[in-house]
């Protein structure tokens, strides 16, 4: 991860030409912002945004037993998926803590795609390869696969301008995907995202991403489509309370305390981490990940201590930022279960200054149904 040679996606030159500020992220040189985080954030909430997320990992499992291998490694029930359907899930270790959070795509009963975080690609690639050995074919397709996200209330207006096939994507159900052709490029759009807005994430061949990006940008000019960097991607996901691996969840946290119990199906049959998770579910939780708003002047940041009203350290902030749409300084953090009811007041140690905060209901932002 701290490799001395950061990698570049096929869109790197595109980002530089758009004036992006490039930062190192999980071994990649990625755009953190183009025009500004707040401006980009608002564009996604009110119009549309386009993201390069080609750094994500894509793992492919094929063969008669591919479904069983995938299902054995994830906490959610992959057996419930139909062809062309995807689901969010965790992958845990034997202790029931989180190796990664994933989206699993069933292309066919014998053909599965698993998308993992860039920061976990090597770990998850090895994990799936090991499990697949002697059971099904495994390919790490990350280097050959680009991923472009198009998100926002006008995302489908943008797609409607690039041909009949793209226009029909608005009929795709949530967490559904299919093969498509957009601007002459063969790709796989999926109705998923990491912003709390409607939209698609589009897989395509590594070298096709610049042409796909150009076509989407041209089609979106009138709709207010903007390129969005990792900075706004983070504020968008935080407002929607979507977990960030490495911040809110990691190998020291389990899905139950992280509020991801809805993707843990202990009754589905055996899977890695099941025994531990059954036990975790049966016992009272010591702590929970909660959302909070700052009541005083200050922004909680990842790693800041959370204190009880007496000033004793009782928890830790895992994510925190000003929230452009919500208009408050918000955060996520682990607190003892007794302190997790909404409205509970506590303190955040903002580098030596105790600033008041209050447990809030999440998601902080929910888009209006249309």
């Amino acid at each position, binding site marked *: 991860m701290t490799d001395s040679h950061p990698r570049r996606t096929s869109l790197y030159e595109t980002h530089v030409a758009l004036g992006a500020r490039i930062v190192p992220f999980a071994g990649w040189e990625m755009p953190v912002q183009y025009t*500004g*985080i707040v401006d980009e954030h608002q564009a996604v909430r009110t119009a549309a945004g386009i993201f390069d997320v080609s750094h994500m990992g894509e793992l492919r499992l094929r063969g008669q037993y591919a479904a069983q291998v995938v299902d054995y490694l994830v906490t959610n029930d992959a057996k419930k998926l139909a062809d062309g359907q995807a689901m969010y899930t965790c992958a845990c270790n034997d202790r029931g803590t989180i190796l990664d959070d994933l989206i699993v795509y069933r292309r066919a009963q014998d053909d599965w795609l698993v998308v993992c975080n860039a920061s976990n690609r090597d770990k998850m690639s090895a994990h799936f390869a090991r499990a697949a050995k002697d059971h099904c074919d495994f390919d790490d397709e990350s280097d050959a696969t680009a991923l472009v996200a198009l998100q926002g209330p006008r995302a489908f207006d943008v797609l409607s301008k690039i041909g009949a096939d793209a226009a029909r994507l608005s009929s795709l159900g949530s967490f559904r995907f299919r093969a498509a052709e957009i601007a002459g490029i063969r790709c796989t759009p999926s109705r998923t995202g990491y912003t709390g807005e409607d939209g698609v994430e589009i897989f395509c061949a590594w070298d096709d991403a610049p042409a796909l990006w150009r076509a989407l940008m041209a089609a979106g000019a009138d709709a207010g489509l903007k390129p969005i960097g990792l900075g706004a991607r*983070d504020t968008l996901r935080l407002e929607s309370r979507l977990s960030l691996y490495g911040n809110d969840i990691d190998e020291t946290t389990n899905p139950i305390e992280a509020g991801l119990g809805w993707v843990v199906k202990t009754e589905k049959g055996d899977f890695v981490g099941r025994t531990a998770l059954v036990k975790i579910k049966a016992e009272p939780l010591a702590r929970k990940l909660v959302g909070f708003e700052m009541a005083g002047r*200050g*922004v909680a940041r990842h790693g800041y201590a959370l204190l009880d009203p007496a000033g004793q350290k009782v928890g830790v902030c895992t994510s925190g930022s000003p929230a452009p749409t919500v208009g408050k300084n918000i955060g996520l953090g682990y607190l003892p279960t007794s302190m997790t009811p909404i409205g509970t007041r506590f303190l955040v140690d903002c*580098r030596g200054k105790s600033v008041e905060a209050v447990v809030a209901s999440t998601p902080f932002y929910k888009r209006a149904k249309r």
Partner: protein
Amino acid sequence: MSDKVPPDLRYTREHEWARAGAGEVTVGITAFAVEQLGDITLVNLDVKVGDEVAPGKPFGTIESVKSLSDLYAPVAGKVVRINEQLSSKPELVNEDCYGKAWMIAIAPGDAKAFGTLMDAAAYGEYVKTAAH
């Protein structure tokens, strides 16, 4: 934008600027710093008039959407004025970092300290290196 540096100011390696006035040195942060920080959301000046400040010791913090940074005094001395507007209008830093968004004014303990700071030419070079 950020590679243009006002010629009449002096600069620190932490990207503060210093302006010499009558018996005081006014302090703010440079356009390069603002561009690196992005949208400024909070300016916390942790000093009051009469407090002593010194280089290497933060006199406050500035928060953008993404990060928090310390603010350092370019010269040692006593705080004589504070820009109270910044606590309610942090966006001034994005709008006018060399003007309306001045942060504090210091009566320097040593009148010669100001002259030891980087001049505009040296800071311009320094920024080029910092930005690669």
